[in-house]
Protein backbone atom coordinates (compact mmCIF):
# COMPACT_ATOMS: atom_id res chain seq x y z
CA UNK A 1 0.00 0.00 0.00
CA UNK A 2 1.28 3.40 -0.97
CA UNK A 3 2.27 5.79 1.76
CA UNK A 4 2.87 3.15 4.37
CA UNK A 5 6.33 2.04 5.34
CA UNK A 6 6.82 -1.48 6.51
CA UNK A 7 7.10 -1.69 10.27
CA UNK A 8 8.21 -4.54 12.40
CA UNK A 9 5.22 -6.06 14.13
CA UNK A 10 5.26 -6.18 17.88
CA UNK A 11 4.68 -9.92 17.68
CA UNK A 12 7.58 -10.67 15.32
CA UNK A 13 10.13 -11.54 17.97
CA UNK A 14 7.76 -12.58 20.73
CA UNK A 15 9.14 -15.33 22.85
CA UNK A 16 6.41 -17.95 22.95
CA UNK A 17 8.03 -20.12 25.58
CA UNK A 18 6.69 -18.22 28.57
CA UNK A 19 5.17 -14.94 29.66
CA UNK A 20 6.15 -12.31 27.15
CA UNK A 21 7.73 -9.16 28.53
CA UNK A 22 7.65 -7.54 25.12
CA UNK A 23 6.73 -3.86 24.91
CA UNK A 24 3.88 -3.53 22.46
CA UNK A 25 4.42 0.10 21.56
CA UNK A 26 7.36 2.16 20.45
CA UNK A 27 7.45 4.92 23.08
CA UNK A 28 8.65 7.51 20.56
CA UNK A 29 5.77 6.95 18.17
CA UNK A 30 3.00 9.16 19.47
CA UNK A 31 0.30 7.87 17.12
CA UNK A 32 0.40 4.52 18.86
CA UNK A 33 -1.03 6.12 21.97
CA UNK A 34 -4.09 7.75 20.46
CA UNK A 35 -7.01 6.09 18.74
CA UNK A 36 -7.87 6.92 15.18
CA UNK A 37 -10.50 9.64 15.28
CA UNK A 38 -9.67 10.71 18.86
CA UNK A 39 -10.56 14.36 19.40
CA UNK A 40 -10.05 17.07 21.98
CA UNK A 41 -13.45 17.95 23.43
CA UNK A 42 -14.75 20.71 25.68
CA UNK A 43 -17.04 19.44 28.45
CA UNK A 44 -18.82 22.81 28.58
CA UNK A 45 -19.84 22.49 24.96
CA UNK A 46 -23.19 20.71 25.06
CA UNK A 47 -25.56 19.22 22.55
CA UNK A 48 -28.47 16.79 22.47
CA UNK A 49 -29.54 14.15 19.97
CA UNK A 50 -33.07 12.76 19.63
CA UNK A 51 -33.07 9.02 19.06
CA UNK A 52 -36.69 8.94 17.88
CA UNK A 53 -37.00 7.49 14.40
CA UNK A 54 -33.31 6.85 13.80
CA UNK A 55 -31.36 3.60 13.93
CA UNK A 56 -28.58 2.73 16.37
CA UNK A 57 -26.06 3.04 13.56
CA UNK A 58 -27.23 6.56 12.74
CA UNK A 59 -27.19 7.60 16.39
CA UNK A 60 -23.67 6.27 16.92
CA UNK A 61 -22.51 8.17 13.84
CA UNK A 62 -24.14 11.36 15.15
CA UNK A 63 -22.33 10.94 18.47
CA UNK A 64 -19.02 10.57 16.61
CA UNK A 65 -19.78 13.64 14.47
CA UNK A 66 -20.52 15.68 17.61
CA UNK A 67 -17.25 14.53 19.20
CA UNK A 68 -15.32 15.58 16.10
CA UNK A 69 -16.89 19.05 16.43
CA UNK A 70 -15.56 19.30 19.98
CA UNK A 71 -18.77 18.65 21.94
CA UNK A 72 -17.85 17.20 25.32
CA UNK A 73 -21.35 16.74 26.79
CA UNK A 74 -24.01 14.93 24.80
CA UNK A 75 -27.56 14.13 25.93
CA UNK A 76 -29.41 11.37 24.09
CA UNK A 77 -33.19 11.75 24.21
CA UNK A 78 -35.74 8.96 23.65
CA UNK A 79 -33.35 6.02 23.40
CA UNK A 80 -36.45 3.78 23.55
CA UNK A 81 -34.57 0.62 24.67
CA UNK A 82 -32.98 0.22 21.25
CA UNK A 83 -30.01 -2.11 20.92
CA UNK A 84 -26.33 -1.22 20.42
CA UNK A 85 -26.59 2.45 21.34
CA UNK A 86 -23.40 4.39 22.10
CA UNK A 87 -20.98 1.61 21.24
CA UNK A 88 -17.32 2.07 20.40
CA UNK A 89 -16.75 5.52 21.90
CA UNK A 90 -12.98 5.86 22.35
CA UNK A 91 -12.91 9.40 23.64
CA UNK A 92 -13.29 11.55 26.72
CA UNK A 93 -16.97 12.46 26.81
CA UNK A 94 -19.94 13.12 29.09
CA UNK A 95 -22.75 11.03 27.68
CA UNK A 96 -26.23 11.03 29.20
CA UNK A 97 -29.06 8.76 28.06
CA UNK A 98 -32.51 10.07 29.04
CA UNK A 99 -34.05 6.60 29.07
CA UNK A 100 -33.42 2.87 28.82
CA UNK A 101 -31.04 0.99 26.55
CA UNK A 102 -31.61 -2.38 24.90
CA UNK A 103 -29.00 -5.06 24.41
CA UNK A 104 -25.26 -4.41 23.88
CA UNK A 105 -25.52 -0.78 25.00
CA UNK A 106 -22.29 1.26 25.27
CA UNK A 107 -20.14 -1.76 24.42
CA UNK A 108 -16.40 -1.50 23.68
CA UNK A 109 -15.98 2.00 25.09
CA UNK A 110 -12.73 3.55 26.27
CA UNK A 111 -12.86 6.78 28.20
CA UNK A 112 -16.36 8.29 28.39
CA UNK A 113 -18.40 8.96 31.51
CA UNK A 114 -21.90 7.63 30.83
CA UNK A 115 -25.08 8.07 32.83
CA UNK A 116 -28.17 6.07 31.92
CA UNK A 117 -31.41 7.35 33.44
CA UNK A 118 -33.20 4.07 32.93
CA UNK A 119 -32.55 0.39 32.60
CA UNK A 120 -30.04 -1.51 30.46
CA UNK A 121 -30.59 -4.82 28.69
CA UNK A 122 -28.23 -7.73 28.23
CA UNK A 123 -24.46 -7.25 27.80
CA UNK A 124 -24.21 -3.62 28.78
CA UNK A 125 -20.67 -2.16 28.64
CA UNK A 126 -19.23 -5.36 27.27
CA UNK A 127 -15.46 -5.16 26.80
CA UNK A 128 -15.28 -1.66 28.31
CA UNK A 129 -11.66 -0.49 28.62
CA UNK A 130 -11.91 2.60 30.82
CA UNK A 131 -14.32 5.32 31.92
CA UNK A 132 -17.31 5.30 34.21
CA UNK A 133 -20.85 4.09 33.62
CA UNK A 134 -23.76 4.69 36.00
CA UNK A 135 -27.09 2.93 35.46
CA UNK A 136 -29.91 4.40 37.55
CA UNK A 137 -32.28 1.42 37.24
CA UNK A 138 -31.80 -2.34 36.81
CA UNK A 139 -29.45 -4.17 34.47
CA UNK A 140 -30.00 -7.33 32.44
CA UNK A 141 -27.80 -10.40 32.23
CA UNK A 142 -24.11 -10.40 31.26
CA UNK A 143 -23.66 -6.93 32.75
CA UNK A 144 -20.03 -5.89 32.16
CA UNK A 145 -19.09 -9.06 30.33
CA UNK A 146 -15.35 -9.22 29.56
CA UNK A 147 -14.87 -5.88 31.31
CA UNK A 148 -11.23 -4.76 31.15
CA UNK A 149 -11.18 -1.52 33.11
CA UNK A 150 -13.14 1.42 34.48
CA UNK A 151 -16.06 1.60 36.88
CA UNK A 152 -19.43 0.09 36.02
CA UNK A 153 -22.20 0.98 38.47
CA UNK A 154 -25.82 -0.13 38.59
CA UNK A 155 -28.02 1.24 41.36
CA UNK A 156 -30.70 -1.45 41.04
CA UNK A 157 -30.37 -5.20 40.48
CA UNK A 158 -28.23 -6.95 37.89
CA UNK A 159 -29.08 -10.16 36.04
CA UNK A 160 -27.32 -13.50 35.67
CA UNK A 161 -23.65 -13.88 34.69
CA UNK A 162 -22.71 -10.37 35.79
CA UNK A 163 -19.00 -9.81 35.12
CA UNK A 164 -18.61 -13.02 33.16
CA UNK A 165 -15.06 -13.38 31.89
CA UNK A 166 -14.07 -9.96 33.25
CA UNK A 167 -10.39 -9.10 33.06
CA UNK A 168 -10.19 -5.91 35.12
CA UNK A 169 -12.06 -2.87 36.40
CA UNK A 170 -14.81 -2.69 39.02
CA UNK A 171 -18.50 -3.59 38.85
CA UNK A 172 -20.65 -2.15 41.64
CA UNK A 173 -24.23 -3.36 42.12
CA UNK A 174 -26.52 -1.52 44.52
CA UNK A 175 -29.09 -4.33 44.66
CA UNK A 176 -28.93 -8.07 44.07
CA UNK A 177 -27.11 -10.03 41.38
CA UNK A 178 -28.17 -13.15 39.46
CA UNK A 179 -26.73 -16.64 39.18
CA UNK A 180 -23.18 -17.25 37.96
CA UNK A 181 -22.05 -13.76 38.92
CA UNK A 182 -18.30 -13.55 38.28
CA UNK A 183 -18.37 -16.67 36.12
CA UNK A 184 -14.85 -17.32 34.79
CA UNK A 185 -13.64 -13.92 35.97
CA UNK A 186 -9.92 -13.45 35.55
CA UNK A 187 -9.17 -10.06 37.13
CA UNK A 188 -10.99 -7.11 38.62
CA UNK A 189 -13.49 -6.68 41.40
CA UNK A 190 -17.23 -7.09 41.75
CA UNK A 191 -19.09 -5.45 44.64
CA UNK A 192 -22.66 -6.56 45.33
CA UNK A 193 -24.46 -4.70 48.12
CA UNK A 194 -27.36 -7.17 48.18
CA UNK A 195 -27.57 -10.93 47.73
CA UNK A 196 -26.17 -13.08 44.96
CA UNK A 197 -27.94 -16.08 43.42
CA UNK A 198 -26.59 -19.59 42.86
CA UNK A 199 -23.08 -20.57 41.76
CA UNK A 200 -21.33 -17.29 42.45
CA UNK A 201 -17.79 -17.11 41.08
CA UNK A 202 -18.03 -20.42 39.28
CA UNK A 203 -14.75 -21.33 37.56
CA UNK A 204 -13.15 -18.04 38.56
CA UNK A 205 -9.44 -17.73 37.83
CA UNK A 206 -8.73 -14.68 39.90
CA UNK A 207 -10.22 -11.38 41.03
CA UNK A 208 -12.35 -10.61 44.07
CA UNK A 209 -16.11 -10.56 44.70
CA UNK A 210 -17.34 -8.53 47.70
CA UNK A 211 -20.86 -9.35 48.88
CA UNK A 212 -22.89 -7.29 51.35
CA UNK A 213 -25.71 -9.82 51.65
CA UNK A 214 -25.46 -13.57 51.18
CA UNK A 215 -24.46 -15.61 48.15
CA UNK A 216 -27.00 -18.41 47.60
CA UNK A 217 -24.19 -20.84 46.80
CA UNK A 218 -20.59 -20.73 45.64
CA UNK A 219 -19.47 -22.17 42.31
CA UNK A 220 -16.50 -24.45 41.77
CA UNK A 221 -13.16 -22.76 42.58
CA UNK A 222 -14.73 -19.92 44.57
CA UNK A 223 -13.86 -19.68 48.29
CA UNK A 224 -14.31 -17.13 51.04
CA UNK A 225 -11.27 -14.98 51.85
CA UNK A 226 -10.46 -12.55 54.65
CA UNK A 227 -10.99 -8.85 54.35
CA UNK A 228 -8.15 -6.53 55.31
CA UNK A 229 -8.27 -2.92 56.50
CA UNK A 230 -7.14 -1.59 53.16
CA UNK A 231 -9.99 -3.33 51.34
CA UNK A 232 -12.61 -2.08 53.82
CA UNK A 233 -11.46 1.50 53.26
CA UNK A 234 -11.45 0.97 49.51
CA UNK A 235 -14.99 -0.47 49.62
CA UNK A 236 -16.28 2.43 51.73
CA UNK A 237 -14.86 4.91 49.29
CA UNK A 238 -16.20 3.15 46.20
CA UNK A 239 -19.74 2.84 47.57
CA UNK A 240 -19.74 6.45 48.76
CA UNK A 241 -18.46 7.75 45.41
CA UNK A 242 -21.13 5.81 43.57
CA UNK A 243 -23.82 7.45 45.76
CA UNK A 244 -25.32 4.09 46.61
CA UNK A 245 -27.42 3.81 49.74
CA UNK A 246 -25.94 0.55 51.03
CA UNK A 247 -27.47 -0.73 54.27
CA UNK A 248 -24.50 -2.97 55.05
CA UNK A 249 -21.34 -1.28 56.43
CA UNK A 250 -18.15 -1.99 54.48
CA UNK A 251 -16.66 -3.92 57.39
CA UNK A 252 -19.54 -6.44 57.23
CA UNK A 253 -18.97 -7.31 53.58
CA UNK A 254 -17.71 -10.79 52.77
CA UNK A 255 -14.88 -11.39 50.37
CA UNK A 256 -14.67 -14.25 47.86
CA UNK A 257 -11.67 -15.21 45.77
CA UNK A 258 -10.45 -18.03 43.55
CA UNK A 259 -9.42 -21.04 45.62
CA UNK A 260 -7.26 -22.74 43.10
CA UNK A 261 -4.37 -21.68 40.93
CA UNK A 262 -4.75 -22.79 37.37
CA UNK A 263 -1.82 -24.25 35.54
CA UNK A 264 0.45 -21.58 34.07
CA UNK A 265 -2.31 -18.99 34.43
CA UNK A 266 0.00 -16.35 35.71
CA UNK A 267 3.53 -16.02 37.04
CA UNK A 268 2.47 -13.39 39.53
CA UNK A 269 0.43 -14.77 42.33
CA UNK A 270 -1.79 -12.24 44.16
CA UNK A 271 -1.33 -11.95 47.88
CA UNK A 272 -4.88 -13.00 48.72
CA UNK A 273 -4.52 -16.22 46.79
CA UNK A 274 -1.38 -17.07 48.74
CA UNK A 275 -3.34 -16.55 51.94
CA UNK A 276 -5.96 -19.06 50.89
CA UNK A 277 -3.52 -21.65 49.71
CA UNK A 278 -1.40 -21.28 52.86
Amino acid at each position, binding site marked *: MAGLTKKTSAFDDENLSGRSQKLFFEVTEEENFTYYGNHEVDFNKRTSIDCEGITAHELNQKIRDSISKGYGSIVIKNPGAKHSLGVGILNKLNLIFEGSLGYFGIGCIDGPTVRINGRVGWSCAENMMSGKVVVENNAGSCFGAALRGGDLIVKGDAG*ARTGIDMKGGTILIGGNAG*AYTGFMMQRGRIIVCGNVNANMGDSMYDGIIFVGGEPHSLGTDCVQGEMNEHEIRWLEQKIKNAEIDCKVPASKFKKYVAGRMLWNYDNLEPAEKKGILG
Partner: protein
Amino acid sequence: MCGIAGVINKKKTVNVGEQMRLMLQGIKHRGPDSTGYAMYGKPKKDGFILRFKVSENAAEKVNVKPEDPELLKDRKKQIDTIMKQHGAKITKQSSSTPYAFRYEFTYKSDNLEELAKAIETVEKAEILSIGKGLELIKDLGDATTVGEQYGLNKFMGTHGIGHTRMATESDVDIKSAHPYWAFPYQDVAVVHNGQLTNYWGNRRVLERSGYRFNSNCDSEIIAVYIADKMAKGIKLEQAMHDSLDELDGVFTYIVSTKDQLGMAKDHMAAKPMVIYESKDVVACASEEVAIRNIFPHEIKTYDPYEAEVKVWQA
Protein backbone atom coordinates in the same frame (compact mmCIF):
# COMPACT_ATOMS: atom_id res chain seq x y z
CA MET B 1 -33.01 -17.29 18.86
CA CYS B 2 -36.77 -16.80 18.82
CA GLY B 3 -38.83 -13.94 20.13
CA ILE B 4 -41.69 -14.43 22.58
CA ALA B 5 -44.13 -11.93 24.01
CA GLY B 6 -47.24 -11.83 26.13
CA VAL B 7 -49.61 -9.21 27.45
CA ILE B 8 -52.45 -9.39 29.97
CA ASN B 9 -54.94 -6.62 30.69
CA LYS B 10 -56.45 -6.94 34.12
CA LYS B 11 -60.25 -6.95 34.17
CA LYS B 12 -60.43 -5.04 30.91
CA THR B 13 -61.16 -5.92 27.28
CA VAL B 14 -58.94 -4.08 24.80
CA ASN B 15 -57.67 -4.48 21.24
CA VAL B 16 -55.23 -7.21 22.25
CA GLY B 17 -54.73 -8.21 18.59
CA GLU B 18 -53.13 -4.88 17.81
CA GLN B 19 -51.13 -4.94 21.07
CA MET B 20 -49.67 -8.33 20.17
CA ARG B 21 -48.98 -7.35 16.58
CA LEU B 22 -47.01 -4.29 17.68
CA MET B 23 -45.02 -6.27 20.23
CA LEU B 24 -44.19 -9.09 17.83
CA GLN B 25 -43.26 -6.69 15.05
CA GLY B 26 -40.75 -5.13 17.48
CA ILE B 27 -38.94 -8.45 17.85
CA LYS B 28 -39.21 -9.51 14.22
CA HIS B 29 -35.39 -9.56 14.01
CA ARG B 30 -35.33 -12.45 16.51
CA GLY B 31 -37.22 -14.74 14.15
CA PRO B 32 -38.20 -14.00 10.58
CA ASP B 33 -39.55 -17.45 9.62
CA SER B 34 -43.03 -17.54 11.10
CA THR B 35 -45.28 -15.71 13.54
CA GLY B 36 -47.93 -17.10 15.82
CA TYR B 37 -50.59 -15.58 18.05
CA ALA B 38 -52.69 -17.13 20.80
CA MET B 39 -55.31 -14.65 21.87
CA TYR B 40 -58.16 -14.74 24.30
CA GLY B 41 -61.45 -13.05 23.58
CA LYS B 42 -64.43 -12.90 25.89
CA PRO B 43 -65.16 -16.56 26.80
CA LYS B 44 -68.23 -17.95 25.04
CA LYS B 45 -71.01 -19.03 27.40
CA ASP B 46 -72.19 -21.84 25.16
CA GLY B 47 -70.13 -23.32 22.40
CA PHE B 48 -66.50 -23.38 21.39
CA ILE B 49 -64.14 -21.85 18.88
CA LEU B 50 -62.13 -24.23 16.72
CA ARG B 51 -59.13 -23.20 14.64
CA PHE B 52 -57.64 -25.82 12.33
CA LYS B 53 -55.65 -26.21 9.14
CA VAL B 54 -55.78 -28.88 6.45
CA SER B 55 -52.53 -28.14 4.62
CA GLU B 56 -49.24 -26.26 4.89
CA ASN B 57 -48.45 -22.81 3.55
CA ALA B 58 -46.49 -23.46 0.35
CA ALA B 59 -44.75 -20.08 0.41
CA GLU B 60 -41.65 -19.32 -1.59
CA LYS B 61 -38.34 -20.77 -0.37
CA VAL B 62 -40.21 -23.29 1.77
CA ASN B 63 -39.78 -27.02 1.37
CA VAL B 64 -43.55 -27.61 0.95
CA LYS B 65 -45.32 -28.32 -2.34
CA PRO B 66 -48.69 -26.65 -3.00
CA GLU B 67 -51.65 -29.05 -2.94
CA ASP B 68 -54.69 -29.21 -5.19
CA PRO B 69 -57.38 -26.79 -3.84
CA GLU B 70 -60.02 -29.47 -4.46
CA LEU B 71 -58.13 -31.78 -2.10
CA LEU B 72 -58.26 -29.13 0.64
CA LYS B 73 -62.01 -28.67 0.13
CA ASP B 74 -62.47 -32.41 0.36
CA ARG B 75 -60.57 -32.55 3.68
CA LYS B 76 -62.74 -29.76 5.05
CA LYS B 77 -65.85 -31.68 4.01
CA GLN B 78 -64.55 -34.78 5.78
CA ILE B 79 -64.07 -32.74 8.97
CA ASP B 80 -67.58 -31.29 8.69
CA THR B 81 -68.95 -34.81 8.42
CA ILE B 82 -66.94 -36.05 11.41
CA MET B 83 -68.13 -33.14 13.53
CA LYS B 84 -71.72 -33.84 12.52
CA GLN B 85 -71.32 -37.52 13.39
CA HIS B 86 -70.02 -36.56 16.85
CA GLY B 87 -72.96 -34.26 17.48
CA ALA B 88 -71.05 -30.99 17.10
CA LYS B 89 -73.21 -28.28 15.53
CA ILE B 90 -71.33 -25.68 13.50
CA THR B 91 -72.91 -22.26 14.04
CA LYS B 92 -70.47 -20.04 12.20
CA GLN B 93 -67.49 -20.58 9.92
CA SER B 94 -64.90 -18.43 8.19
CA SER B 95 -61.48 -18.74 6.58
CA SER B 96 -58.68 -16.32 5.76
CA THR B 97 -56.64 -18.74 3.64
CA PRO B 98 -57.56 -21.83 1.60
CA TYR B 99 -55.92 -24.05 4.27
CA ALA B 100 -56.89 -22.51 7.64
CA PHE B 101 -60.40 -22.31 9.08
CA ARG B 102 -62.27 -20.89 12.06
CA TYR B 103 -65.43 -22.61 13.30
CA GLU B 104 -67.81 -21.74 16.08
CA PHE B 105 -69.70 -24.81 17.26
CA THR B 106 -71.73 -26.24 20.09
CA TYR B 107 -71.03 -29.63 21.62
CA LYS B 108 -72.73 -31.96 24.08
CA SER B 109 -69.98 -31.87 26.73
CA ASP B 110 -66.88 -29.99 27.83
CA ASN B 111 -64.59 -32.96 27.13
CA LEU B 112 -63.43 -32.44 23.58
CA GLU B 113 -60.70 -35.06 23.42
CA GLU B 114 -62.73 -37.60 21.45
CA LEU B 115 -63.88 -35.02 18.92
CA ALA B 116 -60.36 -33.56 18.55
CA LYS B 117 -58.86 -36.99 17.94
CA ALA B 118 -61.52 -37.78 15.34
CA ILE B 119 -60.91 -34.53 13.46
CA GLU B 120 -57.18 -35.22 13.32
CA THR B 121 -57.75 -38.59 11.63
CA VAL B 122 -58.32 -36.62 8.41
CA GLU B 123 -55.13 -36.47 6.35
CA LYS B 124 -52.95 -33.42 7.18
CA ALA B 125 -55.65 -31.95 9.42
CA GLU B 126 -54.24 -30.27 12.52
CA ILE B 127 -56.21 -28.53 15.21
CA LEU B 128 -54.49 -25.29 16.13
CA SER B 129 -56.77 -24.63 19.07
CA ILE B 130 -60.11 -25.37 20.66
CA GLY B 131 -61.46 -23.26 23.45
CA LYS B 132 -64.13 -20.98 24.75
CA GLY B 133 -61.96 -17.91 24.37
CA LEU B 134 -58.68 -19.02 22.78
CA GLU B 135 -57.96 -18.35 19.13
CA LEU B 136 -54.62 -19.57 17.86
CA ILE B 137 -53.29 -18.30 14.57
CA LYS B 138 -49.93 -19.10 13.06
CA ASP B 139 -48.47 -18.77 9.63
CA LEU B 140 -45.28 -17.96 7.75
CA GLY B 141 -44.15 -14.33 7.63
CA ASP B 142 -43.71 -11.45 10.07
CA ALA B 143 -46.26 -10.22 12.62
CA THR B 144 -47.86 -7.64 10.35
CA THR B 145 -48.17 -10.07 7.41
CA VAL B 146 -49.86 -12.73 9.54
CA GLY B 147 -51.93 -10.17 11.49
CA GLU B 148 -53.33 -8.58 8.32
CA GLN B 149 -53.89 -11.94 6.64
CA TYR B 150 -56.08 -13.12 9.51
CA GLY B 151 -57.58 -9.72 10.37
CA LEU B 152 -56.23 -9.58 13.92
CA ASN B 153 -56.03 -5.80 14.20
CA LYS B 154 -59.55 -5.69 15.61
CA PHE B 155 -59.36 -8.66 17.97
CA MET B 156 -60.83 -7.60 21.31
CA GLY B 157 -59.75 -9.58 24.34
CA THR B 158 -57.98 -9.57 27.67
CA HIS B 159 -54.69 -11.31 27.00
CA GLY B 160 -52.54 -13.01 24.44
CA ILE B 161 -49.16 -14.53 23.75
CA GLY B 162 -47.11 -14.64 20.59
CA HIS B 163 -43.98 -15.89 18.98
CA THR B 164 -41.62 -14.98 16.15
CA ARG B 165 -39.71 -18.05 15.11
CA MET B 166 -36.18 -18.61 13.92
CA ALA B 167 -36.21 -22.29 12.93
CA THR B 168 -33.25 -24.06 14.55
CA GLU B 169 -34.59 -27.44 15.61
CA SER B 170 -37.09 -28.24 12.83
CA ASP B 171 -38.49 -27.08 9.46
CA VAL B 172 -39.96 -23.77 8.39
CA ASP B 173 -43.65 -24.69 8.28
CA ILE B 174 -46.83 -23.95 10.18
CA LYS B 175 -46.86 -27.16 12.16
CA SER B 176 -43.46 -26.28 13.70
CA ALA B 177 -44.53 -22.70 14.40
CA HIS B 178 -45.58 -21.65 17.87
CA PRO B 179 -47.78 -21.20 19.89
CA TYR B 180 -48.71 -24.77 20.73
CA TRP B 181 -52.08 -25.72 22.05
CA ALA B 182 -51.96 -28.07 25.06
CA PHE B 183 -54.00 -30.87 23.41
CA PRO B 184 -56.71 -31.72 24.51
CA TYR B 185 -57.03 -28.94 27.12
CA GLN B 186 -59.25 -26.06 26.23
CA ASP B 187 -57.71 -22.61 26.24
CA VAL B 188 -54.09 -23.53 27.12
CA ALA B 189 -51.28 -22.34 24.81
CA VAL B 190 -47.49 -22.11 25.05
CA VAL B 191 -44.70 -20.16 23.35
CA HIS B 192 -41.05 -20.98 23.93
CA ASN B 193 -37.61 -19.53 23.29
CA GLY B 194 -34.70 -21.93 23.65
CA GLN B 195 -33.66 -25.53 23.14
CA LEU B 196 -34.76 -28.58 25.09
CA THR B 197 -32.11 -31.28 25.28
CA ASN B 198 -34.14 -34.14 26.77
CA TYR B 199 -36.91 -33.82 24.20
CA TRP B 200 -36.85 -37.37 22.80
CA GLY B 201 -36.71 -39.05 26.22
CA ASN B 202 -39.67 -37.04 27.49
CA ARG B 203 -41.56 -37.45 24.22
CA ARG B 204 -41.33 -41.25 24.39
CA VAL B 205 -42.68 -41.23 27.94
CA LEU B 206 -45.59 -38.93 27.03
CA GLU B 207 -46.36 -40.80 23.82
CA ARG B 208 -46.62 -44.02 25.81
CA SER B 209 -49.20 -42.23 27.98
CA GLY B 210 -51.26 -41.59 24.85
CA TYR B 211 -50.39 -38.00 23.96
CA ARG B 212 -50.13 -36.98 20.35
CA PHE B 213 -47.27 -34.99 18.82
CA ASN B 214 -47.85 -33.25 15.52
CA SER B 215 -44.38 -31.86 14.85
CA ASN B 216 -40.76 -32.63 15.62
CA CYS B 217 -40.34 -29.23 17.26
CA ASP B 218 -38.92 -29.46 20.78
CA SER B 219 -41.20 -26.68 22.01
CA GLU B 220 -44.33 -28.77 21.48
CA ILE B 221 -43.34 -30.89 24.45
CA ILE B 222 -43.87 -28.00 26.87
CA ALA B 223 -47.53 -27.77 25.87
CA VAL B 224 -48.00 -31.54 26.17
CA TYR B 225 -46.09 -31.61 29.45
CA ILE B 226 -48.31 -28.88 30.94
CA ALA B 227 -51.43 -30.68 29.63
CA ASP B 228 -50.25 -33.92 31.25
CA LYS B 229 -49.66 -32.23 34.60
CA MET B 230 -53.03 -30.49 34.52
CA ALA B 231 -54.71 -33.82 33.69
CA LYS B 232 -53.23 -35.10 36.95
CA GLY B 233 -54.89 -32.24 38.79
CA ILE B 234 -51.75 -30.17 39.29
CA LYS B 235 -52.23 -26.38 39.25
CA LEU B 236 -50.63 -24.40 36.41
CA GLU B 237 -48.09 -22.62 38.62
CA GLN B 238 -46.94 -25.88 40.23
CA ALA B 239 -46.70 -27.57 36.82
CA MET B 240 -44.46 -24.76 35.65
CA HIS B 241 -42.27 -25.07 38.75
CA ASP B 242 -41.94 -28.82 38.10
CA SER B 243 -40.98 -28.19 34.49
CA LEU B 244 -37.85 -26.31 35.58
CA ASP B 245 -36.36 -29.53 36.92
CA GLU B 246 -37.89 -32.02 34.53
CA LEU B 247 -37.25 -30.23 31.26
CA ASP B 248 -33.56 -29.98 30.46
CA GLY B 249 -31.90 -27.33 28.34
CA VAL B 250 -32.10 -23.58 28.06
CA PHE B 251 -35.55 -22.08 27.86
CA THR B 252 -37.88 -19.26 28.70
CA TYR B 253 -41.52 -19.87 27.97
CA ILE B 254 -44.86 -18.15 28.35
CA VAL B 255 -48.05 -20.10 28.94
CA SER B 256 -51.60 -18.82 28.92
CA THR B 257 -54.98 -20.16 30.01
CA LYS B 258 -58.44 -18.66 29.73
CA ASP B 259 -57.76 -16.20 32.55
CA GLN B 260 -54.04 -16.49 33.36
CA LEU B 261 -50.67 -15.66 31.86
CA GLY B 262 -47.47 -17.23 33.22
CA MET B 263 -43.77 -17.24 32.47
CA ALA B 264 -40.94 -19.58 33.49
CA LYS B 265 -37.19 -19.25 33.10
CA ASP B 266 -34.67 -22.10 33.36
CA HIS B 267 -31.96 -22.60 36.00
CA MET B 268 -29.26 -21.11 33.80
CA ALA B 269 -31.21 -17.92 32.94
CA ALA B 270 -29.81 -18.38 29.46
CA LYS B 271 -32.72 -16.95 27.53
CA PRO B 272 -33.91 -13.39 27.96
CA MET B 273 -37.17 -12.01 29.29
CA VAL B 274 -38.12 -8.48 30.27
CA ILE B 275 -41.22 -7.76 32.33
CA TYR B 276 -43.25 -4.61 32.81
CA GLU B 277 -45.87 -4.69 35.52
CA SER B 278 -48.43 -2.01 36.26
CA LYS B 279 -51.79 -1.91 38.00
CA ASP B 280 -53.76 -2.45 34.79
CA VAL B 281 -51.47 -4.39 32.52
CA VAL B 282 -48.52 -6.80 32.53
CA ALA B 283 -46.36 -7.17 29.44
CA CYS B 284 -43.42 -9.50 28.99
CA ALA B 285 -41.19 -10.07 25.99
CA SER B 286 -37.76 -11.28 24.96
CA GLU B 287 -36.65 -7.69 24.46
CA GLU B 288 -37.75 -4.38 25.92
CA VAL B 289 -38.18 -2.89 22.42
CA ALA B 290 -41.27 -5.08 22.01
CA ILE B 291 -42.88 -3.68 25.16
CA ARG B 292 -41.91 -0.15 24.19
CA ASN B 293 -43.93 -0.50 21.01
CA ILE B 294 -47.09 -0.40 23.14
CA PHE B 295 -45.70 1.86 25.92
CA PRO B 296 -43.57 4.48 24.17
CA HIS B 297 -42.91 6.47 27.37
CA GLU B 298 -40.19 5.52 29.88
CA ILE B 299 -41.28 2.53 31.95
CA LYS B 300 -39.71 0.58 34.77
CA THR B 301 -38.90 -2.94 33.65
CA TYR B 302 -36.93 -5.83 35.09
CA ASP B 303 -35.42 -9.20 34.17
CA PRO B 304 -36.73 -12.20 36.11
CA TYR B 305 -33.97 -14.27 37.69
CA GLU B 306 -33.16 -17.90 36.97
CA ALA B 307 -35.68 -20.64 37.91
CA GLU B 308 -38.36 -17.99 38.34
CA VAL B 309 -42.02 -18.68 37.68
CA LYS B 310 -44.65 -15.96 37.58
CA VAL B 311 -48.38 -16.17 36.96
CA TRP B 312 -50.73 -13.22 36.51
CA GLN B 313 -54.51 -13.22 36.62
CA ALA B 314 -56.65 -11.42 34.02
